């Protein structure tokens, strides 16, 4: 296929219906426009058949076999995710996060040995996300039906994150479970004079005892 044809091709008039279908599917992906979709499809078309098949199969298998953990909504291939089914993790700790992205971030710190609970978003009525769209009921169930020593709220410090934290606090306060939230303060390695006043003020209010290290 000559590259001249690719660049001058009118996307609305592709030579094949099958090609058009593939372009449409690719362009549904986030951040992919029609032009990029066409480039990717033409690339796939030029690959050996087995490569294209393994690409398609990876997607099908992922979709069919990856599920959400029934306990914490993490991604898993089993009933329970690898974290919930692990016997070295502290089952009395639940860390509440917005999405799998935050779970991965916290896991990569290697500082946390408890379990998680993924909410699936944060409250913002104007964006069509109310508390009923989040996995809060299942969090409450976990707190009621298990021995939980602490629920850690690890949500962003944005207005939406704080709203969500406050809503969870309201839902859980009657169960008398200890709640905590991530410390807000100066970043490691920051010069104090360049820290913004809000963060600096918060850090001062939430200062902590110092024992020489």
């Amino acid at each position, binding site marked *: 296929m000559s590259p001249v044809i690719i660049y001058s091709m009118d996307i609305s008039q592709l030579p094949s219906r099958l090609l058009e279908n593939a372009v449409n599917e690719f362009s549904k992906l986030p951040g992919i426009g029609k032009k990029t979709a066409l480039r990717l499809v033409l690339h796939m078309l030029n690959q050996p058949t087995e490569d294209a098949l393994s690409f398609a199969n990876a997607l099908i298998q992922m979709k069919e076999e990856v599920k959400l953990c029934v306990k914490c909504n993490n991604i898993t291939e089993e009933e329970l995710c690898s974290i919930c089914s692990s016997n070295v993790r502290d089952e009395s700790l639940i860390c509440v996060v917005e999405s799998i992205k935050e779970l991965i971030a916290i896991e990569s710190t290697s500082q946390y040995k408890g379990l998680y609970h993924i909410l699936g978003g944060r409250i913002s*009525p104007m964006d069509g996300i109310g*508390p009923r769209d989040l996995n809060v009921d299942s969090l409450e169930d976990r707190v009621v039906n298990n021995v939980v020593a602490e629920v850690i709220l690890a949500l962003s410090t944005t*207005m939406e994150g704080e709203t969500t934290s*406050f809503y969870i606090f309201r839902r859980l306060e009657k169960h008398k479970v200890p709640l905590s939230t991530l410390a807000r303060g100066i970043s490691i390695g920051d010069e104090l004079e360049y820290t913004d006043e*809000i963060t600096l003020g918060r850090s001062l209010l939430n200062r902590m005892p110092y024992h020489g290290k």
Partner: protein
Amino acid sequence: MNIKSLSLVNFKNYNSLDVSFSDKINCFTGNNGAGKTNILDAIYYLSFSKSFFSSIDGLNIKHGQDLFVIQGSYIIKDAEENIYCGYEKGKKKKVKRNKKEYERLADHIGLIPLVMITPSDISLIIGGSDERRKFVDGIISQYNRNYLYDLQRYNKALLQRNYLLKEAAKTKSNNDDVIEIYDQQLIETGNRIFEERKKFTDEIIPVFQKYFEHISMGYEKVQLNYSSSLYDKGMKVLLEESKAKDKIARTTTEGIHKDDLELLLGEYLIRKLGSQGQQKSYLIALKLAQFEYIQKICGFKPILLLDDVFDKLDSSRVEQIIELVSQRSFGQIFITDTNSNRINKVLNSVNDNYFHFNVDNAQLTKVYETD
């Protein structure tokens, strides 16, 4: 603190300009469109890293050019400081202090305090209450980041709450549990915002009175009040009591977003009854009170820019204002006027050093300089 010199490249109607200033009074006279106000706006830029008139930097580039540069040399706390502000089409605006670029533009704000009065500010007197809240909020938040943060959180919570009220009415459903979360945020931030606004207005009101009396030579009685329903009740009680009303109105009817400054002349609202001269005097007195407030916070006198403020004022008020601002309590002043005779007359009566420039088609000529 003062600006010693200014240079411009392709800024508004100026190709290039290099000018030195008096550390006291600088007057620019000339016809409309000659470029008087543009000099003031350039000085404003160096303080706030944006134009007083338009938030789109590209609009300030001289027609047909790709970039503008404004540079000013200042004396701040006895040290010389060079401020640079440059913008090139399609690139990020650059602000530098002594050749070092700021990472955040916000860090520059406050270094060179400045108060500007222009004819368009009259909306503060005759416009809606949002104009007056913007005035108050702008001054407080310039020196109080916590206030700004509270204000942003209050406004966001208010938007969400109003959206929920509309949704509940539309879908005939109950979402009180979610509304309550936003109530909590409005209570927390609203009470603090009220306290700060009260503290601010308590401080500027007597100063305003003093200046207005001076300008009107004591002939008129004025009163300025901060009006807010939070005087009687806290935000919590206000929201509880107005809940039923809010549901019918589908919006939040009470709170600090309804606050106003009540501007009275005698017993009447000045926006309804005052003459143009009275309204303008009111505006100038209010802005001079702002000047004194800022001076108190940052410990030195802001630069004062008076853009065409004498128009529609009788000559006695003009003389009172010039006399007032040329006193020791004010620092460096920049004045524009289309009427050269008016300026000459009042400047002759001032015992202070001043520069008088004539501006014609983006060319400056110094016509007078005291020695």
